[in-house]
């Protein structure tokens, strides 16, 4: 950032390490993201496979999956979000402490997936909470989840600490709490969070 990369490598070879506060801060944050134990459906099985011996997400820093949202840094929405469960997902997200991140894993979490026309299916969790990384797939392979994790790490590394684009916990005007939808008589109310998600225009 402030120093030429080649110069930095040369100096590193001589034993002099230069960095910026921004890089150091983000390096600590991105290499130690602890997810929350949160699996909804079939994608949760792939998430469990990613934590097991063959694909091992602990190598990337997700050492333990915290059961409590208060202690977790990230929530992996793995599986179909039903309208019955959606208020609970938003509540859990509200209970997580900043900095917090969301990975929407699988087609159901992104947009409703193969069950999109179901009477109880929420068409994507990004209608209510901000999502940082979307992983397509049904289910995505464990390698895809690892790739998403690395993408999230790159995203965190690129976050500045001041100015535009800084993370929410350093922004006093950032949104802290997202409104929890109410289970109404025919649908969730509101059907989506208008400040959070606007339907992209599609030419039909």
């Amino acid at each position, binding site marked *: 950032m402030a120093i030429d990369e080649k110069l930095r490598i040369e100096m590193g070879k001589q034993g002099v390490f230069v960095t910026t506060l921004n890089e150091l801060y983000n390096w600590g944050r991105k290499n130690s993201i602890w997810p929350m134990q949160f699996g909804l459906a079939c994608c949760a099985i792939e998430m469990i496979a990613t934590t097991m011996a063959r694909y091992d997400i602990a190598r990337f820093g997700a050492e333990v999956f915290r059961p409590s949202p208060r202690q977790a840094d990230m929530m992996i929405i793995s599986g179909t979000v039903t309208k019955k469960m959606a208020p609970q997902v938003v509540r859990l997200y509200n209970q997580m402490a900043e900095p917090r991140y969301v990975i929407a894993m699988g087609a159901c979490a992104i*947009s409703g997936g193969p069950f999109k026309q179901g009477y*109880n299916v929420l068409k994507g969790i990004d209608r209510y909470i901000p999502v940082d990384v979307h992983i397509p797939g049904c289910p995505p392979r464990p390698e895809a989840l690892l790739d998403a994790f690395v993408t999230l790490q790159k995203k965190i590394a690129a976050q500045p600490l001041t100015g535009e684009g800084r993370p929410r916990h350093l922004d006093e005007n950032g949104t802290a709490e997202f409104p929890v939808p109410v*289970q109404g008589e025919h649908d969730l109310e509101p*059907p*989506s969070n208008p400040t959070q998600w606007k339907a992209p225009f*599609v030419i*039909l």
Partner: protein
Amino acid sequence: MKSVEQIKAAIEAAVPGAALEALTNPGPSAQHSLLVDPQHAPAIARFLRDDEELALDYLSNVTGVDWPVKEVTEKVKVTKTVDGIEQSVEETIKRTTGGYLEAVYHLYSMRKKHGPVTLRMRTINRTDQVGLPSLTPVWRSAEYQEREVFDLYGIVFSNHPDLRRIMMWDEFKDYPMRRDYVEPDDYDYEPTPHDDVLAKARAHQQRLGASGEEISQ
């Protein structure tokens, strides 16, 4: 295992006053079903479970069917007097079928290893008289499945130990698996629609204006 006719005869002998009807299934599986009247259904269920020969002790599935009112026109040959001569004439008769909700039970026997026996129970209509007796006191596996039928079709089971919605939330008002269920209009983002989803997405865009970005209640 006995055929449907034999089972019907056995039930009529054991439970007096039961009104039964054997409905034939015209498909190749030939799984005929037994239409049972709601008043005697618990007694019939107990007989089917406790009988030594039938021993239907496992209820594997309870499901619901919605039969909306349908007009059926049939061509029937009727003997009529036409011009003084008795002939058989083809007449078109219109009748209405349906107008009720139905609960279907599939029974197997774990002891005797035979099955399935299919029972059907119909409500009186689809609007206000939608009660049926619950068979949970006879087969415990009916408990959650009858809750599902209540949630999705609206059949109210009497004598059910815990009748409440199981898939939708308690404040939900509709019955999603009925034929006249109108789903909420959340077709605001359909990236690759086709067939009827395309029609719904287009209707949604027309309703909310050409841009389709304002989500109004």
